[in-house]
């Protein structure tokens, strides 16, 4: 047990170091931080000066941005790391360490790198906001940061599974991008279609079910409710708040997010353990 923990620790550390030194994570981290700071700055006020938004407005803007970017980062990181079945993978697997430990250790390292990108992006923007606009609404901002990072982790789990299934880096990255497109863009159209076909067109059980199916939309909705959906979105927001605010809907979405993060990893571990390299 101790050997396994030590191996996981060594692998996670190496993967984290490698990811943080890689151009992809560095570039993505800089991009996300720059966009987050850009969002924190409201733009040019009438006086021609830059003004800084408060935490709540920044959180609302960052919610959408981060829910596009962090799952994309997670998907590509996981797929790229596990899609490359080369001598490096073989060299790891012939060490006196179980394949499960290799998968868990490497995924943990990637998860830490992804969390680092989230913390740096949200953190720098938070410093800018706190310096100029005070700390009101910080709790909601933290909720958004945590939710978006958690969705990134779900993306990472799915990316690992895609990588394990694809066995080739390019194919894996292509699969990851396709999955992101489905979850971040196409799912919304499908959801609108379903809501129209079910006749209501209003938030209700169908909407909660659809939100639970897709962690990006689910956490976006929960984030909006947490930040005050009735104020932000008017009657639709109020209806959304009624659907999710009662507790069960929110629990369903959070539970579904946990499942999205864990289930692909469990399947990936099963495949990884029994596969030929």
């Amino acid at each position, binding site marked *: 047990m101790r*050997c396994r923990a*030590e*191996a996981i620790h*060594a*692998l996670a550390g*190496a*993967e984290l*170091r*490698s990811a*943080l*030194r*890689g151009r992809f994570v560095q570039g993505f981290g800089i991009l996300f931080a720059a966009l987050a700071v850009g969002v924190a700055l409201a733009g040019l006020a009438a006086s021609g000066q830059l003004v800084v938004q408060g935490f709540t407005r920044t959180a609302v803007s960052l919610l959408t941005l981060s829910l596009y970017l962090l799952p994309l980062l997670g998907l590509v990181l996981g797929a790229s790391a596990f899609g*490359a079945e*080369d*001598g*490096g993978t*073989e*060299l*790891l*697997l*012939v*060490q*006196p*360490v*179980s394949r499960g430990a290799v998968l868990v250790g490497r995924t943990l390292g990637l998860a830490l790198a992804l969390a680092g990108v989230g913390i740096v992006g949200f953190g720098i923007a938070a410093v800018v906001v706190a310096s100029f606009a005070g700390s009101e609404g910080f709790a909601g901002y933290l909720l958004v940061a945590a939710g978006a990072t958690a969705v990134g982790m779900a993306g990472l789990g799915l990316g690992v599974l895609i990588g394990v299934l694809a066995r080739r880096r390019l194919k894996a990255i292509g699969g990851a991008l396709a999955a992101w497109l489905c979850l971040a863009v196409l799912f919304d159209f499908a959801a609108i279609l379903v809501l129209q076909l079910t006749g209501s067109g209003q938030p209700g059980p169908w909407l909660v079910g659809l939100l639970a199916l897709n962690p990006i939309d689910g956490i976006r909705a929960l984030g909006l409710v947490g930040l005050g959906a009735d104020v932000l979105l008017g009657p639709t927001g109020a209806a959304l708040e009624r659907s999710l605010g009662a507790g069960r809907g929110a629990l369903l979405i959070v539970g579904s997010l946990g499942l999205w993060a864990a289930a692909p990893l469990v399947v990936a571990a099963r495949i990884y353990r*029994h596969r*030929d*390299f």
Partner: protein
Amino acid sequence: MIIEYRRFTKRYGDVVAANGVDLRVPARTTVALIGPNGSGKTTTLKALLGLVRPTSGEVLVDGTDVTAAGAGLRRRIGYLPQRLSFPEGMRALEVLELYARLRRVAADDLRALLRRVELEEVAGRAVDGFSGGMRQRLGLAVALLGDPELLVLDEPSAALDPSGALLVRDLIREIRADGTGVLLCSHDLAEVQALADQVAVFVGGRVCAMGRPDELAYTGGNPGDIEAIYQAYAGMRARRAEGVAYALPS
């Protein structure tokens, strides 16, 4: 460490990568697997390492089936894969530290190991900028961690320039001299000639000849000449068609 393959067969769907391989690798000897591409050499090596599970047959190490042997066996074997890669951005010493931790080897002698493969001066450099030869030598250092009883080398000098290949060959020669067994597969017949105590010739997924080079049949030249042995077995059908005779040593 004695290795035995008994009717080892590996199929990938309709493709038969290894087709009833029978092979015995005695302790502390250097055995080279030679044969054309797709003849089952790499699959045979990978089965010993647990990277490939047999469809049928057995691979035994000291009488124990490798599929049941687990981590204890892997600690006794060092491996240099064909397409070697290391985590992006890691430095040479960090790579060795990682694998030393995974093999539970004390980290005190890692610099000495880097010195042995002539990489001590670049211990702090990122491996991304290493040449093919430097990567291969670092791979050998990883394979040597914990003083394994057997080294498994898959094309150790493929894609190296002549000086890099000679350096790697010298290193393998030193490792052999220390009493470590070596099981290697190679397309470089000069390398096999220089290193191998025994040769196994693979054709069509099975071993068609195995023994000391001077025991095997050959076409022209001298007994023990690996090129002539290769021609006698691996190129046998084609050579026969051309009317070239082959001979057994007297």
